[in-house]
């Protein structure tokens, strides 16, 4: 077989393709939205769950050094599991404020949930139809976002907060 440029090119192409396949096997296939860390949240107006006249928006969050926005629901089992970490974080009131957004839930059930497990939130908002969650890039419950005073997303916790992520958050807010 004579060595010629076209043959070298073809062989190189094949090797390139097969290498990419090989590498492709190693990478994680599941999509999460963690790539959106660094973007800003904006344009939101969240009403308090028990008081229609109270609400929270961008200006309120800029006052905080760090804010953790936590989407939860009374019907969500993993939300109960992560609740203790939220309560623990609520003790760090000077460094971080926690906002809870009650997702597709009934006011009475949410209030009972917080009465039973404790209320770690500085503000409890409601998202009855789920539309607010979309403007925060949420796609499952529970999900939490940590933002700074410029409203830039620093961390996304998809699913319930666990020990590792809890410690991560503590490190960040020090």
């Amino acid at each position, binding site marked *: 077989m004579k060595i010629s440029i076209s043959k070298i090119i073809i062989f190189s192409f094949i090797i390139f393709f097969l290498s990419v396949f090989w590498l492709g096997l190693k990478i994680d296939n599941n*999509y999460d*939205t963690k790539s959106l860390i660094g973007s800003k949240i904006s344009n939101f107006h969240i009403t308090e769950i028990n008081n229609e006249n109270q609400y929270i928006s961008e200006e309120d969050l800029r006052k905080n050094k760090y804010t953790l926005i936590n989407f939860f629901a009374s019907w969500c089992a993993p939300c109960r599991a992560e609740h203790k970490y939220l309560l623990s974080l609520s003790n760090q009131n000077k460094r971080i404020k926690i906002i809870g957004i009650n997702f597709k839930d009934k006011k009475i059930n949410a209030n009972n949930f917080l009465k039973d497990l404790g209320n770690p939130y500085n503000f409890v908002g409601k998202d009855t139809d789920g539309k607010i969650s979309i403007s925060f890039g949420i796609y499952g419950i529970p999900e939490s976002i940590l933002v700074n005073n410029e409203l830039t997303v620093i961390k996304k916790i998809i699913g319930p907060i666990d020990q590792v992520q809890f410690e991560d958050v503590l490190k960040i807010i020090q």
Partner: protein
Amino acid sequence: MKIKIFFFIIYFLFLAVLNSNDNKKELSEIYKNLRCLVCQGQSIADSNSDFAATIKLVVQDQVNEGKTKDEIYTFLISKYGEWIVYQPTFSKSNLILWILPYFIFIAGGLFIFFIVRKSKNNKAN
């Protein structure tokens, strides 16, 4: 004479087409172009998941506000990343994706053209 009729009709066809707009249902088209993030390879149109239901509400709102398809896609991409739309964006990084097939089509055409011409020359000799 026949050719004249032919062109006459083509002219009418184009006239008619210019006056029409595509009768497609916009909402349905948008739903089909959005990916359900919590499903294994289903669009928002096909999925029965909670997430799909919420997205549909948001899209309906935006359509009623008068937003265009592209604005809605841009919005959702800013929240969820490019993965959420099935039609790849026409960005620089996706240039290869959109251009390469046509490039190969043209290359193939040229290749055949040269072969046929070569064989014509062979025959002539």
